[in-house]
């Protein structure tokens, strides 16, 4: 894992010292809220509906047990004993007091964490595949690139006052688990004739104008990557629209100018930028890579795994849904679900965080990941240890076997916390998960991604959900719009609106009709929801969502 160097540590310490002084001046009245707000946002501190909210970066979603324990400590000491893991691989604390925030930041710094660049018009926390360094299908670990980008962009003078925020995601596998096509820049590691390079995708994004990113270059050589990305950002910095906040993201620039024009401008710019990079970045990259060399894998018998798999149906069900193939023989990637039926998606109590930290230490080479799907991953667990791990998870209510299923829902905080929300999202997720658990149908339904946002900003990724739900305020009442056919993977697609929205009471029955409709319409039990949707299109689903009978009010 990447360790801070002296420069990083001094930088964070200085920022924390400055922020402590700024908080003091705000509390004394020397700074007005208008003066203070940009300062607190630069340090990840928001003001939400009921309280302040501190957003802490977890770079490329990677943590060790010491950091996880510190997150637990902070939750207990200064918050209400829990934290919320987000789709941006951050953790949010929902209840800090203004005066405590400098202490919280210092506590984070003790474990080399911070809340910088989690807000504002900067290059945000670079996200990466949560199975990085472990996945069987991986070409190369994406995290060294993510770290290189973090170092390059942190405090880069050209990138502090950009037209708008800028989000980058990296995947090292052909299977995209980092939603790279919904980011301003998406990077995919590719291999061509034995050489590692990068496919670069630009102009993706969700929010009020959702766009799927387009390939601007299908192979950028390793030594060209930083100058190439700098060229992309600086072309956008020049021609991106600063006149209108809603048109400022690079997705609009790409949309308005066309990918071919942008590609040509970037090539021109690249010719100027490239000579300024004299290979320092290449040396740095080699150095960074040594921090991600991976654990010392052990070899032992898989017999305990096989025995438990055979004898214990609960373990088997969990193993079938929550494990993913590892690149190393004898190992598995474990997804710990933070989506126990009826719970708030992505929330973990301080005790649960500690349990996960202990298990990572005992069984997982001391590594944890946060996934954009709001779950926690133990990337390296030997199969022999899985039965003991599972037993410990069960005790902590962390053994829900639902990864990738209908109850593994992404939901943004919505109106329960968020000041921008137009409706709630969490209770909708809770109801859907609880209902399908009661029906005992979710394993029968198979892979199905429901994603819920509480407003048009789309923090819950609803556009790329197989079923997307968007909460709106229609004349003072919560109203939920359904989109179908979205896809967050390498075959990314924006969902299509199904029709008029549903009230908070009607949304659950609507989802039930939709899912029962899918079970009737699918060609076989092998055909997933998204495959059925692609085969037969919107109309049959519309018919089940909006039956002609007067029983269902459709607006």
């Amino acid at each position, binding site marked *: 894992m990447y360790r801070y160097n002296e420069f990083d540590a001094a930088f964070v310490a200085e920022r924390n010292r400055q922020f402590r002084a700024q908080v003091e001046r705000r*509390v004394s009245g020397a700074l007005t*809220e208008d003066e203070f707000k940009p300062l607190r946002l630069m340090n990840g501190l928001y*003001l939400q*509906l009921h*309280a302040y909210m501190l957003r802490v970066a977890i770079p490329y979603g990677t943590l060790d047990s010491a950091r996880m324990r510190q997150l637990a400590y902070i939750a207990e000491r200064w918050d209400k004993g829990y934290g919320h893991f987000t789709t941006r691989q951050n953790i949010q604390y929902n209840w800090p007091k203004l005066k405590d925030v400098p202490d919280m930041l210092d506590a984070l710094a003790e474990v080399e964490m911070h809340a910088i660049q989690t807000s504002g018009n900067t290059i945000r926390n670079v996200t990466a595949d949560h199975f990085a360094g472990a996945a069987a299908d991986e070409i190369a670990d994406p995290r060294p690139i993510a770290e290189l980008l973090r170092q390059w962009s942190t405090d880069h003078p050209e990138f502090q006052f950009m037209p708008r925020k800028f989000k980058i995601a990296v995947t090292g596998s052909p299977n995209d688990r980092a939603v790279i096509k919904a980011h301003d820049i998406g990077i995919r590691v590719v291999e061509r004739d034995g050489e590692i390079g990068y496919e670069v995708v630009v102009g993706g994004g969700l929010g009020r104008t959702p766009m799927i990113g387009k390939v601007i270059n299908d192979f950028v050589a390793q030594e060209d990557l930083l100058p190439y990305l700098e060229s992309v950002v600086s072309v956008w910095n020049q021609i991106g629209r600063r006149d209108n906040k809603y048109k400022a993201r690079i997705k609009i620039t790409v949309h308005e100018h066309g990918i071919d024009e942008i590609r040509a401008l970037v090539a021109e710019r690249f010719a100027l930028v490239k000579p300024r990079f004299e290979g320092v970045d290449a040396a740095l990259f080699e150095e960074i890579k040594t921090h991600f060399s991976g654990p010392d894998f052990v070899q032992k018998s898989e017999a305990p795994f096989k025995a438990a798999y055979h004898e214990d149906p609960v373990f088997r069900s969990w193993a079938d849904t929550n494990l993913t193939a590892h690149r190393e023989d004898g190992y598995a990637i474990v997804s710990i679900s933070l989506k126990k039926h009826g719970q708030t998606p992505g929330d973990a109590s301080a005790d649960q965080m500690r349990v996960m930290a202990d298990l990572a230490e005992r069984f997982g080479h001391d590594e944890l990941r946060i996934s954009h799907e709001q779950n926690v991953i133990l990337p390296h667990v030997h199969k022999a240890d899985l039965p003991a791990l599972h037993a410990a998870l069960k005790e902590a209510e962390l053994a829900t076997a639902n990864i990738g299923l209908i109850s593994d829902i992404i939901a943004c905080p919505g*109106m329960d916390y968020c000041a921008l929300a137009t409706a*709630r999202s*969490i209770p909708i997720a809770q109801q859907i998960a609880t209902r399908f658990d009661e029906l005992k149908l979710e394993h029968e339904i198979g892979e199905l991604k429901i994603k819920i946002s509480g407003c048009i900003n789309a923090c819950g990724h609803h556009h790329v959900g197989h079923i997307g739900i968007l909460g709106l*305020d229609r004349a003072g009442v919560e109203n939920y719009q359904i989109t179908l056919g979205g896809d967050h993977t390498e075959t990314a697609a924006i969902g299509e609106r199904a029709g008029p929205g549903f009230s908070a009471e009607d949304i659950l029955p609507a989802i039930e009709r939709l899912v029962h409709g899918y079970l009737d319409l699918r060609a076989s039990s092998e055909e997933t929801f998204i495959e059925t949707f692609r085969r037969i299109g919107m109309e049959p689903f519309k018919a089940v969502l909006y039956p002609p009978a007067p029983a269902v009010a459709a607006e």
Partner: protein
Amino acid sequence: MPKPFTPKVVTANHLLEGDVIYQTADGWTRNLAEAEILLEQADADMRLIEASQQTDVVVGAYLANADASDDGPQANHFREEFRATGPSNYFHGKQAGALPGPLNGQESHNPSRI
């Protein structure tokens, strides 16, 4: 045609605690039911200005719609209902015990303002 005026309360977040507070005739409260109900536009505008000037106590003061009732002002939009009670996913926030009565002086460095 301008919309007819509907009753309002002045609400904001508390600078230090961050939680939702409401203006009373002579200070602030954490309970909507104890807020001062404003029945006239001019009065509401004036009270909002007074609230906004207390930058060392409150953040983001605004006028929220409310219905007058015998039990004090009641929220009439779901956003204000959540602000008055807290999140609906857990029993916490205000619903778990907003202290009744006026905010006490310790919560501001400048008690005279409260």
